[in-house]
């Protein structure tokens, strides 16, 4: 049920799939309502999202700000492009690390799957180079701890 897959597709895509027990409507809400987003879109341990702006309408603004317990943080901004309530969200986003990363164009689909939902998130990066950089930076910040552990291993 909770098995997630993350794979690259062609030169510029990354596709994430995950099944959920909840129906598409709930998934859609959890991806668009700030109070819900703030509860789960946190990445590794120690991160919180004190600021979450999500104006879920075409052209509406997105802004997520994360901070870590030990200080430090980063943010992303974006815009909603298309919204099919309960079914599909298309938005574009960029992270500030602190310079803005190239735009990541993301289509998120919530397809009914039995009593639950199959979520498919398809990211499109401008080119292979950018996708490589995104994968290498861990797609989200706050993975430095893991990175350091990995360097110990390599």
């Amino acid at each position, binding site marked *: 049920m*909770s098995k*997630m897959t*993350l794979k690259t597709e062609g*030169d510029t895509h990354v596709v*994430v799939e*995950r099944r*959920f*027990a*909840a129906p598409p409507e*709930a*998934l859609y*809400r*959890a991806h668009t309502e700030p109070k*819900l987003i703030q*509860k*789960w*879109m*946190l*990445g*590794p*341990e120690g991160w919180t999202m004190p600021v979450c702006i999500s104006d879920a309408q075409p052209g509406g603004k997105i802004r997520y700000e994360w901070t870590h317990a030990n200080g430090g943080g980063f943010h992303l901004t974006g815009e909603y492009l298309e919204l099919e309530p309960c079914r599909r969200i298309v938005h574009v986003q960029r992270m500030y690390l602190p310079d803005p990363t190239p735009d990541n164009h993301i289509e998120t689909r919530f397809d009914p799957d039995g009593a639950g939902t199959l979520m498919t998130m398809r990211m499109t990066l401008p080119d*292979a*180079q950018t*996708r*490589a*950089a995104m*994968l*290498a*930076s*861990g*797609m*989200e910040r706050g*993975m430095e701890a*893991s*990175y350091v552990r*990995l360097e110990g*291993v*390599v």
Partner: protein
Amino acid sequence: MLNLDSAFSALADPTRRAILARLAQGEATVTELAEPFEMTQPAISQHLKVLEDAGLIARRVDGTKRPRRLVEGGIEAMDQWLAMVRKALQGNYHRLDEVLAAMEPVKPKETR
């Protein structure tokens, strides 16, 4: 030493992926590596340099030849990194499971 950032960039190029695939079968010289591609040796050497700087391949001195080989553990380290990326995302989705469960009051199910 593997540099993840350059390693992922290095893999973004099909020629370099093909070179790695060839080297996975064993050591090869620049001439041997250039053979399957319609490319000049300097062009291949440039790709080899990118792979070398990323820490994915290494060279050995053998007389006038400089055969290249895969650095042990390089590709595995990238796999490990992707595994950690997956883990962080999985963490998010575990939390999302809980958020979803809390959102939905348990509805009476039809009797089976």
